[in-house]
């Protein structure tokens, strides 16, 4: 097996091949049949003979000192096999994605409601539940820090040794009139915007199975976004070598960022190793809401200045996002919120002060579009205010200031590659609006189509329709100098290609794309993807940040191409021609005898390659100025929303959504549509219904009864157009597509609500009372 390191493994580009189910085709998911039959094994479906059920006791207090823990009553119960607390963690007492600051179990202090205190393994879920209740924990309740502004101003003693500000990121860019003041234009608008705490609300609960091995090692079958980073954290906490902790991807029931952090992973392995039996965890919905991070809530104060003709001059921003009790990915989230706060527009100067805080609220971390979602709501809302102030059409104002290739963003980085901001705006604007856009439904129309639906509350005479427009942008892949890589292997034998990758399929369709790449590069429909595991291949990096088609897709492409080159050399040797007489192109060998499919060229022999793929290097941001080339690539998107509102009752129906998205090149049209429609639904959710309600550190609505996500009745009909400008350094020119749909869909809906109601609506989600009672 040949291993080629990154020195020679530059990101591949290339053209589509000749296999009908290859790249560019709407190939069907290889797991689709199993999923529709109910035969696909999700992590919550795993079971083994003799397995135990794990359960975790969690803190009922947002901030308290642990005076005493007595697990004796639980251990004494029949059916209880093991109980573990902080005292039983043999390795690192803490874990974390970027900084290791979160205890496996609270030892001395609990810092949020839901923090793990102890776990039990028992012969049934019910016994485990009762055993958790039997554990005695005496708390000395402390005054919680729940106001992020008090974390910023330093008026509260640190609730964690690492302090109450996880990261402060200043940005100072361009023409400054003073250290903290940009030069300004004659026209200025400013406002403060607020974003509530959204939840990823995937359907498949945190779950999986830990299986101990006789040699003291452990296998963990788990739903996750990033097997290797989980493996490293788990091994560190268990005090085991990484190779003694093998993580295997179990069926993932959605992720959206919430599976980047470990959940029960360490707990399950500890209990399995202690009891010597397989241990299953499966959170219930309320525990899931407490057991994963959420989208950061925050306040974003923003000021734009412009020339009288609408040319933007400066921006000034202050961002405070609340990271809750532990850091998770806050470090990256605040950097996104800070540097994308300008919107995809040219500015001459920028001053941004961005904080992400530590409080006794629920921990927040990654969610689809992390940081850029919050920023987008602010910059797009303010662009509309500026348009009104200037008397310029809002779409025209955006076009006038749209970034182009070669422009600098406020980190000073010059944008290279495809930057089709103008194109997405114009394409979205030019999509036909639904009939009678200026009018809400007619009185004779089905009342189920009115706001309120089956609740039948809207009065027809009150109904108003509004249209809103917004534009979003975000980087693709990791940034700020993170060592971002992905491994893949390819084995070709007897016309069948086997692809090995640890990339987490979370529903997005990686398994389809990986097959399509193999088909195109090797010229065979027969491509098999091995199960993802840390035991078989190096890291794939995270399924997040719109990065896997580029990163793992690039790795699979390179591995398959390396195999194809081996086949070409072997064919030349077997046929006694010079090696350079055989070329590889689009899944075929071009030989002196004519073209032949790569996979069919040399039967009976086995070819293998393993590749590590990295993208172009990125660099940290300067601590004082926020300047630096920290990004690899960007994607852009525009949305136009149509809403019907009953302003008297605050009822809303999002009728229609148009979008134009910069996708580079479409690799699978059907899956692309699915990503765009699904992301829009989450953006609509943030606009009008989704919020984790936290009072005094306590989550008030940890259920699908009280945390509402869009149903099939709540989502708009989507009309979309894809802007294809191949990204120069991306595999096949394709950009990541997963996050962009969530960016500007939210502000587009709110802009439409403002147009319909005349309300300011500076906060999302917009609640009925914000419209009816403001």
């Amino acid at each position, binding site marked *: 097996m040949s291993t080629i390191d990154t020195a020679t493994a530059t990101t591949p580009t290339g053209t589509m091949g000749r296999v009908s189910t290859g790249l560019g085709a709407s190939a*069907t998911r290889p*797991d*689709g*049949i199993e*999923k*529709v*039959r*109910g*035969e696909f*094994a*999700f992590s*919550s*479906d795993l*079971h083994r003979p003799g*397995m135990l*059920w794990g359960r975790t*006791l*969690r803190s*009922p207090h947002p901030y308290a000192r642990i005076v005493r823990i007595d697990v004796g*009553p639980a251990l004494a*119960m*029949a*059916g*209880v096999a093991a109980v573990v607390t902080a005292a039983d963690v043999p390795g690192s007492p803490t874990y974390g994605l970027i900084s290791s600051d979160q205890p496996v179990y609270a030892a001395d202090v609990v810092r949020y409601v839901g923090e793990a205190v102890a776990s039990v393994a028992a*012969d*049934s*879920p*019910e016994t485990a*539940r*009762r055993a958790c*209740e039997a554990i005695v924990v005496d708390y000395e309740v402390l005054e919680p820090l729940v106001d992020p502004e008090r974390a910023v101003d330093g008026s509260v003693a640190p609730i964690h040794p690492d302090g109450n500000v996880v990261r402060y990121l200043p940005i100072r860019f361009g023409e400054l009139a003073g250290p903290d003041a940009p030069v300004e234009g004659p026209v200025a608008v400013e406002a403060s915007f607020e974003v509530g705490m959204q939840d990823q609300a*995937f*359907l498949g609960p945190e779950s999986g199975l830990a299986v101990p091995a006789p040699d003291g090692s452990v296998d963990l079958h788990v739903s996750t976004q990033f097997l290797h980073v989980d493996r490293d954290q788990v091994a560190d906490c268990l005090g085991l070598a990484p190779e003694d902790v093998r993580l295997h991807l179990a069926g993932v*029931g*959605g992720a*959206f960022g919430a599976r980047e952090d470990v959940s029960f992973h360490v707990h399950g392995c500890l209990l399995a190793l202690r009891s010597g039996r397989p241990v299953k965890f*499966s959170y*219930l*919905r*309320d*525990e899931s809401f407490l057991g994963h991070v959420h989208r950061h809530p925050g306040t974003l104060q923003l000021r734009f200045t412009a020339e009288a003709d609408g040319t933007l001059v400066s921006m000034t921003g202050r961002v405070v996002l609340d990271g809750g009790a532990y850091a998770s990915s806050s470090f990256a989230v605040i950097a996104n919120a800070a540097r994308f706060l300008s919107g995809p527009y040219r500015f001459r100067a920028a001053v941004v002060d961005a904080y992400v805080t530590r409080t006794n609220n629920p921990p927040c971390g990654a969610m689809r579009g992390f940081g850029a979602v919050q920023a987008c709501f602010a910059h797009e809302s303010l662009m509309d205010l500026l348009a009104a102030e200037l008397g310029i059409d809002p779409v025209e104002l955006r076009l006038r200031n749209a970034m182009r290739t070669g422009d600098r963003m406020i980190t000073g980085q010059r944008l290279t590659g495809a930057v089709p901001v103008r194109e997405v705006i114009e394409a979205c604007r030019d999509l036909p609006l639904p009939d009678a856009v200026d009018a809400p439904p007619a009185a004779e129309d089905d009342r*189920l189509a009115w706001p309120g*639906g089956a609740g039948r509350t809207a009065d027809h005479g009150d109904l108003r329709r509004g249209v809103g427009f917004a534009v979003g942008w975000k980087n693709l892949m990791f940034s700020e100098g993170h060592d971002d890589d992905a491994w893949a292997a390819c084995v070709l034998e007897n016309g069948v290609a086997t692809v090995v990758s640890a990339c987490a399929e979370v*529903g997005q*369709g990686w398994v389809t794309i990986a097959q399509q790449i193999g088909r195109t590069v090797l010229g065979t429909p027969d491509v098999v993807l091995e199960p993802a595991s840390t035991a078989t291949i190096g890291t794939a990096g995270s399924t997040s940040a719109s990065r896997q088609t580029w990163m793992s897709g690039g790795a699979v492409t390179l591995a398959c191409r390396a195999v194809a080159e081996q086949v070409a050399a072997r064919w030349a040797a077997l046929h006694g021609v010079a090696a350079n007489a055989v070329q590889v192109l689009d899944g075929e060998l071009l030989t002196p005898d004519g073209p032949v499919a790569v996979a069919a060229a040399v039967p009976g022999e086995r070819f293998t390659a393993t590749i590590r793929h990295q993208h172009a290097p990125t660099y940290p941001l300067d601590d004082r100025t926020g300047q630096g080339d920290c990004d690899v690539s960007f994607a852009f998107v525009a949305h136009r929303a149509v809403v019907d509102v009953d302003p008297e009752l605050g009822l809303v129906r999002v009728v229609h959504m148009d979008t134009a998205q910069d996708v580079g090149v479409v690799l699978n049209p059907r*899956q692309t*549509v*699915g990503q*765009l*429609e*699904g992301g*829009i*639904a*989450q953006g609509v959710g943030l606009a009008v219904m989704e919020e984790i309600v936290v009072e005094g550190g306590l989550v008030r609505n940890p*259920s*699908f*009864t009280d945390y509402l996500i869009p*149903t*099939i009745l709540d*989502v708009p009909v989507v009309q979309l157009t894809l802007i294809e400008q191949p990204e120069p350094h991306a595999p096949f020119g394709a950009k990541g597509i997963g996050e962009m749909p969530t960016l500007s869909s939210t502000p587009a809906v709110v802009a439409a609500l403002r147009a319909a109601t005349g309300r300011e609506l500076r906060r999302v989600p917009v609640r009925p009372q914000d419209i009816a009672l403001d």
Partner: protein
Amino acid sequence: MTSPPDASRPPTDPAGTATPTDTTDTTGTTDTAPGAAGTYELRVNGQVRLVESPWLGESLLSVLRERLGLYGTKNACEQGECGSCSVLVDGALVCACLELAAAAVGTDITTVEGLDPQGALTDVQQAFVDCGAVQCGFCTPGLIVAVHDLLARQPQPDELTVRESLAGNLCRCTGYGRIVEAVHTVAHRRAGVR
């Protein structure tokens, strides 16, 4: 696999103060004293299945998954909000998490595994694959059952009827657009269109 829990359990929280640990358990048992409720038989997907030593109050969802090994019926909210556990009881669409298993004795229960008597892929299942209505797939079995129910009642539903009928099935991945397409595709195929 699942054995009865310890009978000498501690009293439940007398003050009723909710804590994060204070949740309904996976098996659907609540504060009812656990213990054998008597063996009974359920007719599932045309087969008579023996349910031994169930707990009092055990949900149909728990029995299907943990006792009968029918994991196609999913557990996502366990309070009837998400539809992931949709099954047919005597032809009526229900959330298995809200049904008492013992009360289903004498009924005909159909799960996603039994939609076709011969185990073939149904036209609804095929259309979900064809149209891209499946992403993570966790909601999919429940939706498949719900769509079979809808089309049995209304062979040619209009758009609003489709949406009203499936409003009890949450999906977090797809935004529902391709699910609607899949329903219309089946309706058209059954009508001989296309």
